C-alpha cells in the first residue's frame, strides 16, 4: 500500500490523452492457446455430462450435468467467436482433446480424462457412475483452473479484456462447482449407512 497523499493523479489529465483504443495491449500466443485449448477441454466435459441420463445418474447429478452442458456449450461458443474475430485458427470441439492444424493426435489439456478413464466412466452405471463422474469432473475442473494459472503466469497474457473476463469466470465458476461436487461426493461416501 502506498501513502502518497496529494499526488495529482495521471487520471485527472487523462481526458486530454487519445482514447484508450489507440494503445490497446495486444494479445499473446498464451491467450490464443488458452482460449483454443478450452474448446476441446469443454467438449470433453460436455460428453461426460451428456451420459448422465443413459447411465443411471441420480437426480442431483443429472441436474448438475444438465447445467454443465449448457454452461460449457456457451463458453465454447464464446471461445470460437473470440478466435474468429482475431483471425486465429478455430479448433473443432473434439472431446478427445485440443486439435491443432497439422497434428494427428489431439492434445490432452490439463485435467482432461485419458481414453481409458473415459471408457471407465462410460462403462459405469447408477451410483458407480455418480461416484466416478464426480471424481473425474473435479479432476477436469481443476485442470481448467490450472489452465487459468498457466495463462496468468505467461508474460503479457490476459491483458485483453474478454480473455481476462473469461479466465476469471472459469476460475470462479469452476471453483464453486468443485466445492459443490466435493459436497456431493462426501454425501455419497457417507451413504454406507
Amino acid at each position, binding site marked *: 500500500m502506498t501513502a502518497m497523499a496529494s499526488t495529482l493523479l495521471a487520471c485527472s489529465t487523462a481526458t486530454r490523452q487519445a482514447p484508450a*483504443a489507440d494503445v490497446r495491449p495486444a494479445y499473446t500466443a498464451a491467450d490464443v492457446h488458452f482460449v483454443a485449448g478450452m474448446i476441446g477441454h469443454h467438449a470433453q466435459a460436455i460428453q461426460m455430462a451428456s451420459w448422465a441420463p443413459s447411465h443411471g445418474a441420480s437426480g442431483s447429478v443429472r441436474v448438475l450435468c444438465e447445467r454443465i452442458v449448457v454452461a460449457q456449450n456457451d463458453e465454447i461458443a464464446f471461445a470460437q467467436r473470440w478466435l474468429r474475430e482475431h483471425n486465429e485458427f478455430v479448433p473443432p470441439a473434439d472431446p478427445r482433446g485440443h486439435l491443432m492444424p497439422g497434428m494427428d493426435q489431439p492434445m490432452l489439456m490439463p485435467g482432461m480424462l485419458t481414453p481409458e478413464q473415459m471408457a471407465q466412466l462410460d462403462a459405469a452405471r447408477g451410483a458407480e457412475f455418480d461416484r466416478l463422474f464426480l471424481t473425474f469432473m473435479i479432476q477436469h475442473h481443476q485442470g481448467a483452473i490450472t489452465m487459468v494459472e498457466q495463462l496468468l503466469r505467461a508474460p503479457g*497474457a490476459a491483458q485483453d479484456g474478454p480473455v481476462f473476463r473469461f479466465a476469471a469466470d472459469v476460475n*470462479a465458476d469452476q471453483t464453486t462447482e468443485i466445492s459443490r461436487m466435493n459436497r456431493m461426493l462426501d454425501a455419497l461416501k457417507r451413504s454406507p449407512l
Partner: protein
Amino acid sequence: MKPASLSSSLAIAALALAACATSKVNMSTTAPSPDPRVGLRAGWMNAAEAAWNVRLVSTTPPSPDFINRSTPGDFQFINSDLSFTGPYVFQGNFSGVQVWDISNPRRPRLHKTFVCPGSQSDVSVYRKLLFVSGEALNGRTDCGTQGVTDTVSHDRLRGIRIFDITDIANPRHITDVQTCRGSHTHTVVTSPTDTANVYIYVSGSAPVRSPNELAGCSDAPPDSNPNSALFRIEVIQVPLAHPEQARIVSSPRIFQDLAVPARHGEAPEDAAAFRRSVDSARTHGGFVATVGDGQVVILGPGFIRGQLDSLVKARGGTGAATAADTATLRTNLQEIVTRRVEANRRRQGPPTGPTQCHDITVYPAIGLAGGACGGYGLLLDIRDVANPKRIAAVADSNFSFWHSATFNNDGTKILFTDEWGGGLQPRCRVTDKPEWGADAIFNLAGTTMTFKSYYKLPAPQTPNENCVAHNGTLIPIPGRDIMAQGWYQGGISVFDWSDPAHPKEIAFFDRGPMDSTKLVGAGSWSAYWYNGYIVSSEISRGLDIFELEPSGFLSQNEIDAAKLVHFDYLNAQDQQQLVWPASFVVARAYLDQLARSNGLAPDKLAAARSALARAERLSGQQRRDALQPLATQLSNDAQGSADQPKLRTLAAAILDLANTR
C-alpha cells in the same frame, strides 16, 4: 449512515403534481400478449424497444473517450456499476469513470470523465470520497492505458483506488489499497457507532496474485498457510479525517465450517419416488432415520444386519437376532445414525466452503448483511463492522453462482441473485430453465432463511443476448416490496415480491440484441431507483433514465409516494432504510392498495377518500379534527378487514399526518 430523509421542496412538488394527475390512467392488470420483448429488431443505438408501465426519459450515449465507434460493444469500454451523490451519477467503465449531472433527467450532462483502465470499476461515493474497484491484470497505479505486461509488477493495481472528489471536476488520487485477489466488487459500510471511519468490504473472485507482486499473498489452502488469500474477504478501514491512511484491518474467514447441503437438486420425479419409498419402508417395518438438516435416509439391509449382530454379541448371545433385539435397534436407531454422521464429519474435517464472495449487501440499520459467496447465500451480523460474523447460510442446487443480495425494507425477506455464466452468456433463452440464473426469494426471521420462490425475467431472449439476473434496488413504494432490476440484454424488469411465494412483473423495458448474427455484450448492468427515476447503466449504449407510469399494478399515488423519499447519496450495496414523511399522498397510496386487495369495502373506501380530500383542504386544528376521527374509524374497520395490517398502517399514517405541524 444517514437514513433517507424528506426533501420538503420535492414533497411539495410531488403533492402539487398528484393533485392534477388523475386522468388518462391505464388500469390494466394484464401483461401485453404476445410479449413485445420477443422479436425486437437488432441494432446498437437503433435497436427496437419495448416498454410497459415505464417510460424511457432519456438515453445518453457514452462520452467520446468511452466508446469505440468502429467496434460495437467493444469490451474495453463496458459500462459497469453506478453510484450517486446529489445530482451526480458516477458510472464505472472498464476504461475509467464517467460522471453525469442528471439535474435534468431528460438531458443528462457530462460533468467529468477520467480514463483509468482496470475492470470492473465498481464505484461508490461516500461524502467527499470516491472508491473504485480494480481487478484485471491491465490496471495500473498511474491509470495509464498501456496495461502491465510483466507477470510481476509494482505498477499493477488490483484492489481499491481512493479519490478525493471535494471538487468533482478535479478528482484527486489519494491512495490505493492493494489486495491479493483484486476487487471484483466492493461495499461501503458505515457504522452507527464508529463515525470517524468508513469501511469497505472487498470481494475478489479473480486468481490470487504473486507474493512477489504483493507481499504475503498466497493461494495455498488455509490448512497449509493460515494467511491464505482464499476463503476470506478483506475489510478496509478508511479514516475520514485521513483517508490516505486507509488500510486492511481484518480478513474475516466467514466461510469457516460451512457445511450446508445444496437443496432442490433432485428432479421432481426423483423426489416423489423417494418420498414413496420412505413411506413404503415405514409402512413395511423398514428402518428410517434422519441425517443432519432433516434429510431422511432408508437404512440398507447390510447396515441393519451389522447393528443387529452387534446387539446379539453385546448380550452374549449367538445366532439370529430376536424380536427384542430389533425393538432395541428401533429405539436407538436415530441416536446411532446421528453418532455415525458426526464421526464421519470429524474424520473428513470441516468442508471448506466457498473461497470468496462475489458481492455483499449491507443493511446497517438492522445490523445485517447478505453475502453472495460462491455456492452460498450468507447472512452476516455486521454490528461489529470490522469483524462480520456469519450467522446463517443457504445453498441451492439450482443456483450456480450467488451474485448479490437485496433485503426488503422491513428486513423480513432477502432476495439473492444467481449470475449463472458470469453475465456474458445468454441464459434467458427459451431453453434455459426459469429457476436457473434467476432470483431466489427467502423469508427472513432471526437467523432463519426460508426459500419461497424463484423470479426470472419472464420474456425469452435470443441466443445473441447476454442475459441473467443482475443488479437492482428497491423502489420505495410504501407498504409493498417492489424492485427494479437489470438483466443485461434482457432489459429492465420491475417486479413485486410483497408475496414472496408469487413474485410478479409489473413493468419492463427491453431492446433488441446488439447484433442479430452473434452475441455482442450489452444491456443493463444495474437499474437503480434514485430520487424519482430508475437509472440504468447500459453496458454499450450509455446511460438510460426511466420514469414509472401508473397502471393497474401501481397507482399514481404510489409512484408519487415513492418520489417523496429522497437520498442525499446512494450506493446500492449499502442499503438505506426507507422512511416516508407524513403526507396525504402516502395515505392515498395505502387506500389504493386496499382497493386492490379488497381490504376495505368500496363504500368505506370512497368515504375514506373523500374524508381525506376534505381534510387536505383544511389546515391547523381543523385539519387535525378531521383526521383523528378518520384514523379511529379506520382502526375500527381493521377488525373485520381481510387486510388488517394495511388498514392499521393507513390509520397510523393518518394519525401521523394529524400530528404533523
